[in-house]
């Protein structure tokens, strides 16, 4: 199986969105007085904000995920172009939100757990405001989700998302239950060959140089920055799964910090959902 075929199982382009409607939705997303909520978790750097358009409670500030028949929030009622598209798509929504990723923000390499009931559902992205330094990395390739399309993400591989340089990236994300309408929308998933760009492989010299640079930062007292520098290598080079976590452990081994080695070894297992 070639890279593109393998990736198409992870991330695919579905229908197009009318450019004029998309532009109106973009305007709404950039100007609406939304109650953005910061998301915090072990697998991200900060700078990840969400606000709900459809959920169980109808409250835009409620950003908890759960199986439900979602109802529009007060925010969506103030975004008519966005509401019109969601109605037009006619999908069975579980949760619809706006997600904003700030510049220099990262969702570190991880694998999603399937925490909810085993009901078939899918995650759709509609990029509203994006830039070329915002992309998803999986399988050693980066995919920039361009505007104008509905994208489907089913990441079973380890993956990560970044917005390196900005400006803000704003996506509409819809979690939908599978039904006939969804199946019609997803009847011809594809991934345009130009959408995925293989990352260069990092040779031993590159890895050694970056590890040395991290060590220099840690020696100056910037240990957290050194860790983040190594985590960011996932977005620059095609690396074996979990390699960035191993590099951080190696950094702390060289510093004699056994506690940090254990912490990062545990983090790798948790973030990549490894059983052993």
């Amino acid at each position, binding site marked *: 199986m070639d890279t593109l075929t393998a990736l198409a199982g992870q991330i695919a382009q579905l229908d197009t969105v009318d450019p004029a409607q998309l532009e109106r939705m973009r305007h709404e997303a950039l100007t609406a007085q939304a109650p953005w909520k910061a998301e915090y978790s072990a697998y991200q750097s900060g700078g990840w904000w969400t606000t709900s358009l459809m959920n169980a409670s109808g409250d835009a500030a409620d950003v908890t995920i759960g199986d439900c028949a979602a109802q529009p929030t007060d925010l969506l009622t103030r975004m008519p172009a966005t509401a019109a598209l969601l109605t037009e798509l006619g999908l069975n929504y579980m949760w619809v939100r706006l997600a904003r990723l700030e510049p220099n923000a990262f969702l570190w390499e991880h694998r999603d757990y399937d925490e909810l009931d085993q009901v078939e559902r899918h995650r759709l992205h509609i990029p509203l405001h994006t830039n*070329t330094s915002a992309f998803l990395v999986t399988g050693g390739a980066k995919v920039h989700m361009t505007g104008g399309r509905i994208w489907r993400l089913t990441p079973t591989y380890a993956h990560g998302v970044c917005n390196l340089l900005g*400006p803000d990236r704003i996506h509409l994300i819809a979690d939908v239950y599978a039904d006939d309408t969804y199946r019609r929308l997803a009847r011809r998933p594809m991934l345009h060959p130009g959408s995925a760009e293989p990352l260069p492989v990092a040779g031993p010299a590159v890895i050694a140089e970056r590890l040395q640079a991290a060590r220099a*930062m840690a020696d100056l007292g910037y240990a957290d920055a050194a860790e983040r520098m190594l985590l960011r290598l996932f977005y620059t080079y095609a690396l074996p799964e979990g390699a960035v976590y191993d590099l951080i452990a190696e950094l702390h081994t060289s510093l004699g910090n056994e506690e940090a080695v254990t912490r990062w070894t545990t983090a790798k297992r948790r973030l990549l959902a490894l059983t052993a």
Partner: protein
Amino acid sequence: MPTLHLAELTFANRPAQLPLLSRLADILAASPAVTHLLVRGSLAHGTADRLSDVDFVVGVQDADLPAFVGSLDDLMSVEAGALLPGWRDTIVADLGGVGMVFLVPDEGHLHQIDLYVAPASRVPRLRATVATAVLLDREPALAPAEGTAVAERFAAEFLARPRTCAELLIEHLVLAVLLHKRIKRGQRFVAYSEWHRLHTATKDLIKTALVPASRFWGWYQLREEIALTPIGRACLGDLEAAIGGPAVPSAADVDAAVERTLSLVERACPEAMSGLEDAITAYRTYLEQM
């Protein structure tokens, strides 16, 4: 006399750069090698406007100066989200250290961050000559004489090292941000000076790319050395276009100069662009929003 509640008003009128300044100070102060954090310029004097740069003097233990400067690009990229590697500041006065300028996005805008990294042993003298506001003043460990010698040697070598094409490209991009600021403020004399610097950087870029071992100083003998090939003639054509413009540029002139420089780099030294493609795309977007 009634009590007036001015705190809220004062907070609302604080400089827009203050949260960024505070964040950068937290980042830099995390290292025990940093002995001083001083703010200079308009933010220290209370005369800042929304375009003002954030201008720090960072005092570091003398012996740590080479390691600190060596880590600065990574630190500013990872922790502050700097768009590009730092530009070696050739405008700042020599105060015994090295100056670097970074472009950092914050709240949708590009901010100019000046970091003057000085060995701790030079900070007292620097403070006697430059007005600063003190954010951090940590007693440095006793600087051994060899630490001071290490710092002096490093600073001298750092400033003397010839600039690469990538560094000269970054110089253009930083100067263009400075120029947009001058134009917006109506600072015509400073704009004139920086516009000339931009042309000089273009000349230096062409020489570095096409005649790195030039036998001639400055602007002399450019035609004789460079106009020998189609690439050389095209690059000198760009330089002609640059110096044929107005003495004080408009914003459109500055934008045209940036695009001309990027084309020149593509033609004469495309490797200088390697790894900077996304940064340049982002730079263009932020420049539109300035």
